[in-house]
């Protein structure tokens, strides 16, 4: 039993890690508390459903279209909401409140178009494999492999490409990036595109297994944030570690208590971290003065 839950936790954790990485990519570099990120995760499977089921387009093509549309939504948020505010030098709170506004609008638009109830994309039950007395479903394998591949690719990319160096430079000092005539607004678009990509993949992977409703984004965002904090803000490996730890922790809390309590446990862990180790597992301490 224990190992079964551990493996389930690791698989869920890998999706947390991917989604959290997308959030961290925006948060670490722009310091925007990007609450609207939740809707990217939610909206991607709805796009997929539209093309796959309503318009009967082939699965691969539908997935590609859904991901592209999600990325466009992400870019639109940056272009039409954040960028003008940043230009006006608005405070972080103003950005966050606008982000909440975007989230409210998107959730209710989706609810208007598709209804409030849970929608299923893939009605067939997934095949499963049995190793000893551990059961792993086909979907779980897909989830784990896909998120690992994307995380891995991103890490390599971050380390060795020019993009990676620019990202890390943005994280450390945006003003300095401007001084070195880096195209900061343009680069931000790249960041929002990648973060949209991660949210879309995470959303589709989860929805393929469990279906979705217009409100799935917020709980996932909360998990992503908790993963980011317990990993440590400022480093890009942190959300990955945090996501895996959180996934395992939640799976074990399901084993010990019940599934209903897992949000409360995630946030209790968050509060404990904020209190005793605000820099997370591997983050750096912030200086006050």
């Amino acid at each position: 039993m224990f190992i079964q839950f551990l493996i389930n936790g690791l698989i869920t954790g890998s999706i947390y890690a991917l989604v959290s990485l997308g959030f961290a990519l925006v948060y670490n570099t722009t310091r925007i508390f990007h609450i609207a990120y939740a809707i990217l995760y939610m909206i991607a499977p709805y796009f997929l459903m539209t093309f796959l089921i309503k318009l009967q387009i082939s699965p691969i093509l539908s997935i590609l279209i859904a991901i592209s549309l999600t990325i466009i939504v992400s870019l639109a948020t940056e272009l039409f909401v954040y960028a003008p505010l940043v230009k006006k030098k608005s405070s972080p709170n103003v950005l966050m409140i606008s982000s909440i506004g975007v989230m409210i609008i998107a959730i209710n638009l989706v609810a208007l178009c598709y209804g409030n109830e849970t929608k299923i994309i893939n009605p067939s039950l997934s095949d499963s494999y049995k190793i000893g007395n551990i059961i792993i479903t086909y979907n779980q394998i897909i989830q784990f492999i896909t998120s690992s591949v994307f995380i891995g690719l991103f890490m390599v990319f971050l380390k060795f490409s020019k993009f990676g160096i620019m990202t890390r430079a943005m994280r450390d000092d945006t003003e300095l990036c401007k001084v070195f005539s880096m195209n900061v607004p343009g680069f931000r678009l790249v960041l929002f595109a990648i973060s949209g990509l991660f949210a879309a993949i995470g959303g589709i992977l989860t929805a393929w297994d469990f279906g979705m409703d217009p409100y799935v984004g917020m709980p996932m965002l909360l998990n992503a944030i908790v993963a980011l904090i317990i990993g440590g803000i400022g480093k890009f490996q942190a959300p990955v570690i945090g996501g895996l730890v959180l996934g395992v922790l939640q799976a074990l809390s399901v084993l010990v208590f019940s599934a209903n309590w897992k949000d409360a446990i995630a946030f209790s862990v968050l509060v404990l971290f904020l209190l005793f180790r605000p820099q997370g597992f591997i983050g750096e301490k912030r200086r006050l003065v």
Partner: protein
Amino acid sequence: MNYVFHILIMINIYIILSVSTNLLVGMANLLSLGQAAFYGIGAYVTAYALIGLGLPLLPTLLLAMGVTAIFSFLLAYISLKLEGDYFILATLGFQIIIFTILYNWIDVTRGPYGIPGIPSPKLFGLVKIEGITGYIILSTILSAITIFVFYKIINSPFGRALKGMRDDEIAMISLGKNITVLKVEAFVLSSAFVAIAGFIYASYISYIDPTSFNLDEAIFILTAILIGGTGNIKGPVIGAVFVVLLPEILRFVGMPDNLAANMRMIIYGLTLIILMRYRPQGIAGEYKFSK
């Protein structure tokens, strides 16, 4: 007529919520996503006091405020060491934890089934607050008291100190002000008054369940005061009136109910975005979130 009275009672409830939340958001620059949790604690304590203990009105109200104040003190103690985003996160965490407890601890809170049949409270054991007229009087008196109290606070040296802290914490420290204590006081005071709204809601509707006090509600309260504006009394009051009246206006212009629920939220969202861009102080507020 009852319909108009019902709207007025809801407006009173939201005036209490937004005027007291304003002390945090507009005066102390503490953006809290946990206000609905305090609203809920106030409502649940009211339910227990009226059903279980059979207390009269004033003791129930004071008990609801007191218990909420204790919870908010605990949260303040934990979260006020944290800065900016971390503070918001801690309040968010608190909101989720309280909601999960209300929803899942079925032995105590009856979870998703909610608590039905909350009786009307009696004033001094004599006058029973009954019917919609009783509640319109009660809620108007309580919201008037809330407005008066917060008007006094904002214009007192305490209010000035909060504004100073909002502008510049380092300068406040250098002038010998204990900003942690200031923040805790603002936090506890604000939550205790939010509990009044919970009290009215629980006894008026006579049925409560956790979904009235979830994160969406917390965001909704925040929306109300951000639309109206923060930093003074006028702004939050206008915001409360706006968010309560808008769905009624939509219904009035003939929008079908199933559409109206989503439409009003979309309008709130749009209003928030447009206000933040062009008028961060809201319709009638003072504070522009300039820091």
